[in-house]
C-alpha cells in the first residue's frame, strides 16, 4: 500500500537539505494502470502516424502546411499552464488550503476550456475549407488522433469539476485524509497525462517536416 504523505511534499523548499528522498506513490495503483494503458495506446497512435507518413510523405507535408501551427502551440501553452495550476492545487490540498485549491482548479479548468474553444475554432476552419476526415490520410490521422485526445481532455474537465466540488466542500475537521489526497493526486495525474500526450501530438502532427 501507499506510504503516508511525507515531509518531502510538505516542505519542498527545505527538501534540498535531505540527502535521501522518501519515495511516495501518488494516487492509487489503479490510476497508474489506467494512465500507463492509455499511454501505450497513444504510443501506438504515434508510431502508426509515423509509419503511414513514410508511405506518402508529399501528401503529409502538403496537408500539414494547411494547418495553423499557432493554434497547436497556443494549446500547448494552455495545457502546460493548466497542469501547473493543478500541480499548485495539489500542493494546496496537502497544506490543507482548500480555498486556494478550489481557485487553482478553477483556473486549470479555464485553461482547459480555452483549449476546447481553440480546438472548435480550428476544426471549424478546416471543415469550412472542405478538409474533413476522408479528405486524405493526413487528415484522417489529424481528426482521429486529435479527436481521441480531445475526448480525453473532456473527460479530464469532468475530473476537474469533480475535484473543484471536492475542494469547495472544504477540508474535513482534522484536515484531509490520506484517501482524500489520493483522490486529488489521481485526478491531477490524469490531467498531466492529457497534457503530456498533447506535447507529443503537437510536434508530430503540426511540426514534423
Amino acid at each position, binding site marked *: 500500500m501507499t506510504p503516508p504523505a511525507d515531509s518531502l511534499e510538505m516542505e519542498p523548499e527545505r527538501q534540498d537539505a535531505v540527502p535521501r528522498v522518501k519515495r511516495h506513490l501518488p494516487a*492509487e*495503483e*489503479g*490510476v497508474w*494502470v*489506467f494512465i500507463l*494503458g*492509455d499511454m501505450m*495506446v497513444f504510443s*501506438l*497512435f504515434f508510431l*502508426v502516424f509515423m509509419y*503511414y507518413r513514410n508511405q506518402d510523405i508529399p501528401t503529409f507535408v502538403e496537408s500539414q502546411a494547411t494547418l495553423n501551427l499557432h493554434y497547436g502551440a497556443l494549446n500547448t501553452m494552455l495545457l502546460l499552464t493548466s497542469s501547473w495550476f493543478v500541480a499548485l492545487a495539489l500542493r494546496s490540498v496537502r497544506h490543507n488550503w482548500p480555498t486556494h485549491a478550489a481557485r487553482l482548479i478553477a483556473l486549470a479548468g479555464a485553461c482547459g476550456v480555452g483549449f476546447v474553444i481553440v480546438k472548435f475554432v480550428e476544426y471549424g476552419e478546416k471543415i469550412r475549407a472542405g478538409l474533413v*476526415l*476522408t479528405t486524405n*490520410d493526413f487528415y*484522417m490521422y489529424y481528426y*482521429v488522433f486529435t479527436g*481521441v485526445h480531445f*475526448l*480525453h481532455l473532456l473527460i479530464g474537465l469532468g475530473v476537474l469539476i469533480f475535484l473543484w466540488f471536492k475542494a469547495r466542500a472544504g477540508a474535513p475537521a482534522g484536515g484531509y485524509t490520506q484517501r482524500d489526497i489520493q483522490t486529488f493526486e489521481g485526478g491531477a495525474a490524469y490531467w498531466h497525462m492529457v497534457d503530456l500526450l498533447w506535447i507529443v501530438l503537437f510536434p508530430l502532427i503540426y511540426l514534423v517536416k
Partner: protein
Amino acid sequence: MSPNLSERAQSITVWWGLAFMYIFGFTLYWLLHMMPPPTAMLTEAEVGAFYLTHAFDIKLGAMVSSWVSAFMVPFSVVAAIQLARLEKQDNPTGVPAWSILAFAGGILMSMFLVFPPIVWGVAAFTAERSPGLTTILHELGMLTLTTTDQFYIFQMIPIAIVSLTRKHDEFSAFPRWLGYFTLWAALAFEVGALAFMFKDGPFSWNGVLVFWMPLVVFGSWVTVTSLVMLRALGRQSLEKRILQGSSVNAADVRV
C-alpha cells in the same frame, strides 16, 4: 444473502467462458480465416473466390462457433453475481441496478460476437452464388465484428462504477485497480466504429487500431477479469468452508 450458484459452480462457469473464448479465437484464425481479416480492398470476384476456396473451413468454423461463441454469457452471469455481492453490502434488500445493467450489457456484447460467424457461415453455405451477394454477407460479418465494441461499455462502465464506488473486503472480485483497468479497456475500444469509414490503413477492418488493438485489449480484459474473479471465488469458498467448520487442507490456504 448468498447466491444459489455456489462459489465452486461460479468458478467452473468462469473457466467455461474463458476456455470458449480461446476456442473462439482459434476458430477465427484456423477455420474462419478471419484473423487476420482479408483486406477490405478485395473486389467482389475476389471475395467470391475467397469463400469458394475456404467454403468447407468456414462452414466448419461457423459450426464450432455455434457451440462456443456465446462465451460472454457465462462470464457475464458470474460477473453480475459478484457485482451484486458488492452492491448489496450497503443495501441488502435494494435492487442491484448496476449489476443488472452489467448483465444486460454482457448479453448484448455476446450477440455481436455470436452474429459474425453465422453470417460468414451463410456466405459460405452457397459460395457459388453471385459474388456480389456473398460480398454483402462478408461485409456484414466483418463490420459487425469490428464496429460493435462500443456497445461493450454497458457492461464495462457498471463494473468500473461499482468497483470504484463500493467498499471492498478481501473477497471482492472487482478491486479498485480492476475498475481503472476496465475504464481504460472501454476507452481503448472507441476507435473501432471508424471501420465504417475506411477500406485501407489502420482504421479499416483489418487495421492495427480497429482490429488488432481491440482484439488484444478485449482478450486481456476478459482474461484478467476472469482470473481476478477466480481468485476472489477461491477466497470466498474457503471462507465459507471455514465458517461451516468443515476441514480445510493446508494446500487450500494459499489463495
